[in-house]
């Protein structure tokens, strides 16, 4: 699958509190409303200015902090096609796969705000069209690829009646 869109650049250590602030706790059962505040404390312009299919591009340890699955859920719901980062926090990583939000681990220093990107999830190749360069990415572990390909964890369990990871 090839994803195309513009890069929205964020720094290191984007916590789940920055992605999905605690003060909107009461909106957690109203995901479309909650999604309007996605990444608000990291970039107040992001939610209102991004276009569907854009990418979130960040530095190290993206998604650290709480286990709130609402964080990847609202990133996906806002229309982001994938998150590219140098590294991801563990719970966020697993949650994103479970809810079907693709994550790509790569050297994001070579991507700037507004760059046009093409991400091929199957080959793991990222084309930065603005800079005319290609970047390689770490491929997902097999267990996670199986879950993502089934459309997330709920679909995976519904399909197999159990975990089917190898």
């Amino acid at each position, binding site marked *: 699958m090839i994803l195309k869109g513009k890069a929205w650049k964020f720094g290191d250590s984007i916590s789940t*509190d920055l992605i999905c602030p605690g003060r909107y706790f009461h909106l957690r059962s109203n995901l479309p409303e909650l999604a309007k505040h996605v990444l608000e404390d990291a970039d107040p312009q992001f939610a209102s200015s991004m276009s569907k299919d854009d990418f979130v591009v960040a530095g*190290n340890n993206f998604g650290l902090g709480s*286990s709130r699955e609402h964080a990847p859920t609202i990133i996906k719901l806002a229309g982001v096609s994938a998150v590219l980062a140098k590294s991801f926090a563990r719970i966020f990583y697993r949650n994103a796969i479970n809810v079907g939000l693709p994550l790509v681990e790569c050297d994001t220093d070579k991507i700037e705000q507004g760059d046009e990107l093409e991400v091929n999830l199957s080959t793991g190749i990222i084309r930065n069209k603005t800079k005319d360069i290609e970047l390689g990415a770490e491929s997902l572990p097999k267990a996670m690829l199986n879950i993502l390909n089934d459309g997330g964890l709920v679909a995976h369990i519904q399909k197999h009646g159990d975990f089917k990871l190898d």
Partner: protein
Amino acid sequence: MGTLAEKILSVKSGKDYSANDIVIAKVDVAAFQDGTGPLGVRQLQKMNITKVKAPTSIFFLDHAAPSPRRELSNDHMLLREFSKQAGAILSEVGDGVIHQRLVESFAKPGDVVIGGDSHTCTSGALGAFATGMGSTDVAIGMAIGKTWFKVPETIRIEVNGKFQPGVFSKDLILYLIGMIGADGATYKALEFGGSTIDKMSMESRFVLSNMAVEAGAKVGLIASDRVTREYLKARGRLKDWRPLAPDKDANYEKVIKINAAKIEPQVAFPHTVDNTRPISSAKGKKVSQVFIGTCTNGRIEDLKIAAKILSGKKRATDTRLIVVPASRDVYLEAMKLGLLATFVKAGAIIMGPGCGPCVGVHQGVLGNGEVCLSTANRNFKGRMGNPEGFVYLASPATAAYSAIKGRISDPREVIKKGKKGKIRVNKSKKGRGNR
């Protein structure tokens, strides 16, 4: 040849596994809180699951307790209704914070505990493979009584030596996180050991395991030993105890040695937990609010030391003081011991057991530019309800002493070594704190 993580997961998956293997393990305890539970319940409903299978399945109403808004009241209703129908336990508003309740009454050595809350790793101090996961993972674990893991590699944290008076396990864990960074243990297990840990109380151990996730770790494990046994026995749970230790020749990815005697009181500066520095670099920073509580440091040991420091003293005029016992049992005990009276006299407000202001849902939200010194585990931007606020993290002793001074202050000024190695709080007006 196994680490604690490898040994527990091998037993729970029915075969010998080691680091980096993918396993499907039995789940003993699956838990949700009120922020992650509603999404979990909706996933279960989507799958038409009406009964839970994990032996202990629990919903905790603690983050918004009591509920400050109708949306959250409705979430609570959903969780009450579902737990009744599905055969799960409900921990009501006022019973306490998920992690404190889990260690008090549910988690045991050798268990696999999964929780829809990142600090589920707290139960690792009892020797349980306890880890935080998202709503869908916990929902599935609750529904089918199993989950999958990649067996983590382990970083062994070997702590020896004696803390100086005024230095606590909170300072140790802040120091460690400062040293290895917020992603220093990502995907890995931390295993704490050494003579300092052997002698440490269970309550102090919980602090270490609680904050393992702040270094990115999957679990923060401690062997189950005599201290664990005494703790469970005191809670009427002796039958839940069993010994558990890593093998002598266990394979560690890395061993980090720490001399406890060298650690000073630590403070984590805004807005990341690994932004820790010795207290001297924070000394004198004005604080508008001091918060003593949470699943990290809202236990009786914490309230005791805070009360000792605050006894007969008053909070500074410009510094509010909020105290939140982590559970109903802690609350009762603090009441019995007269600690609550000490806090109230010192000018504190006591709130009901739960998360209190920790996550910015309600109670004690910071104003623009305000500084809070908190005993919690996180200080991310926006954490206490306002991205314009600043949260510093420290031990209960540092917090209590700073509340009196109105500025971040070093508790070693009043905590001295007493007889038999017991710590003593210096009451003299001429104490160094007032010089």
